């Protein structure tokens, strides 16, 4: 697996101790408030540590004011904290400069920004955008809308029999007409790690730019955008222990500099007359209107929290727990894993013979086990896998083997309820 991931030196936990989900869980008030909760839907959104919840509240209590325009102390403090959050994100992703960090609502808005600002400016009819069958709707629909508007082509790289990206097929689909490769870093249905280093190399060799969707990667492994050399990278704050309403579009400075703005309004302009308006440089050019100031600051706190645990430690934890969950589920007669041949991180999709995922989720909920059932915003992948829906369990820093045991027990309970245990 190590060939697929950027290695960073192992970061020791802030308290110097071992990575212990039971201890970590105590930092998440939701588990105190919902005793017995087995939360296995972190891939949809992560729970929030007290450091983020309380830090957000404290910011509103002490330093809140609008940013960028106030001369007075409160506004200067608020601006400093907001821009420090941008620096924090830049450091977390190892971006070359904080000006490469654009705050957006989430990955979805980040991808739409690239499609509508970069795509409309630089793509011509006949150009191709290459995605994969693993993508979330957020990395499909914006390109379809652009296709229908511009007459570009949307090309789809297939998965292989094991549910991972078919790298050879991908390489064959790259042509000089490929202007952008837009691909997930970790697949949200299967947890599969995409070999993004190879994807970037192959795409760049062809002259294409690369956008990586890091929604499921940023919470789970060390990400270094400079080592990856990708042109765009997006992720959502709420999936990495931060507040809702905030996310990040990283782009290389030269790429941002060449892009026209997308939304117009305050903060992104230099001069405005009714005849003509001139725009700010990046990143302000792409942040029209009052940003989610508290969201950005909260995201900074969430990154502090993750770095405190250590991203390498988090990766090892997620990988080990995923392996364990795969084994434990496979040991239950009647359970099939979906797309779990390659290395997986934090997400396990499965089916149980004779029980629809929707029924599983309802039954699990009565056992306090929260999972997701459905198409996981990846209908094309479902079609390709020949299923309507899967059950999906996903992990976070607070998840452990006890959660997996509860999951397995819930599967067995569902089988009993459906009278399926004697069937084997």
């Amino acid at each position, binding site marked *: 697996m190590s060939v697929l991931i950027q290695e960073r030196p192992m970061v020791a936990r802030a308290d110097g101790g071992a990575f212990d989900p039971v201890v970590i869980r105590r930092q998440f008030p939701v588990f105190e408030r919902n005793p017995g909760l087995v939360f296995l839907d972190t891939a949809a959104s992560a729970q929030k540590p007290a450091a983020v919840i309380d830090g957000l509240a404290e910011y509103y209590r002490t330093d809140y004011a609008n940013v960028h325009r106030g001369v007075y102390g409160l506004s200067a403090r608020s601006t400093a904290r907001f821009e420090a959050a941008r620096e924090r994100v830049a450091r977390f992703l190892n971006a070359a400069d904080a000006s490469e960090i654009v705050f957006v609502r989430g990955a979805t808005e980040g991808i739409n920004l690239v499609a509508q600002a970069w795509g409309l400016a630089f793509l011509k009819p006949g150009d191709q955008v290459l995605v994969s069958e693993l993508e979330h709707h957020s990395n499909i629909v914006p390109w379809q809308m652009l296709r229908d508007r511009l007459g570009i082509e949307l090309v789809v790289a297939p998965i292989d029999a094991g549910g991972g990206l078919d790298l050879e097929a991908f390489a064959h689909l790259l042509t000089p007409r490929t202007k952008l490769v837009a691909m997930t870093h970790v697949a949200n249905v299967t947890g599969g790690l995409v070999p993004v280093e190879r994807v970037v190399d192959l795409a760049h060799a062809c002259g294409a730019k690369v956008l990586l969707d890091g929604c499921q990667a940023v919470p789970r492994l060390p990400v270094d955008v400079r080592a990856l050399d990708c042109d765009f990278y997006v992720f959502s704050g709420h999936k990495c222990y931060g507040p809702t309403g905030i996310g990040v579009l990283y782009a290389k400075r030269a790429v941002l500099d060449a892009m026209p703005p997308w939304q117009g309004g305050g903060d992104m302009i230099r001069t405005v007359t009714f005849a003509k308006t001139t725009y700010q440089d990046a990143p302000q050019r792409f942040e029209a209107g009052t940003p989610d100031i508290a969201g950005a600051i909260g995201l900074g706190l969430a990154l502090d929290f993750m770095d405190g645990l250590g991203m390498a430690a988090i990766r090892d934890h997620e990988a080990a727990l995923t392996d364990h969950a795969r084994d434990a589920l496979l040991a239950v007669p009647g359970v099939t894993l979906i797309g779990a041949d390659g290395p997986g991180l934090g997400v396990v999709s499965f089916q149980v013979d004779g029980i629809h995922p929707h029924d599983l989720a309802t039954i699990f909920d009565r056992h306090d086990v929260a999972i997701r059932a459905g198409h996981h915003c990846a209908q094309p992948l*479902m079609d390709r896998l020949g299923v309507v829906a899967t059950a999906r369990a996903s992990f976070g820093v607070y998840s452990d083997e006890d959660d997996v045991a509860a999951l397995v027990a819930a599967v067995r309970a569902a089988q009993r309820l459906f009278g399926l245990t004697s069937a084997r």
Partner: protein
Amino acid sequence: MMDLRDLYQDIILDHGRHPRNFGPLPDPSHLAHGHNPLCGDTVTIFVRLRDDRIAEVSFEGKGCAISTASASLMTEVMLNKTLAEAQALFAHFHTLATGGATGGLTGGAPGLPPGLEEEGDRLEPLAGVKAYPARVKCATLAWHTLEAAVRGGGTVVKTE
């Protein structure tokens, strides 16, 4: 903890596993597709109307135990009903499954015209779904689709 058995009664599990009237009608007079975009479940309802009466009805699709059992039970109670009776059954079922969103003073069987009591009783096992708000749409999908089929046909229906 609400007993899961209220939802997954034997009759539901049985119809979920062995749906009645499953498969296409060769030559339907009316047909509609239904779709639940949240989970991806789909259903197709086939109807042959004769003189305003549901002479034949069947369904096809992929869905959970609740949606399959609901569709199966629906085809059973709807067979040979007039459109007026079908409408009454639809209203009755809707109250049953949602807890009365369409009105009706009792939670039980509001305004079921005489002669349909037996059908009402056969639908009773579906009442458990109203304690599971996230699953109500599973139960109602087939019914909305049937309504669309006999009203016009060819429409795609969704429940969200």
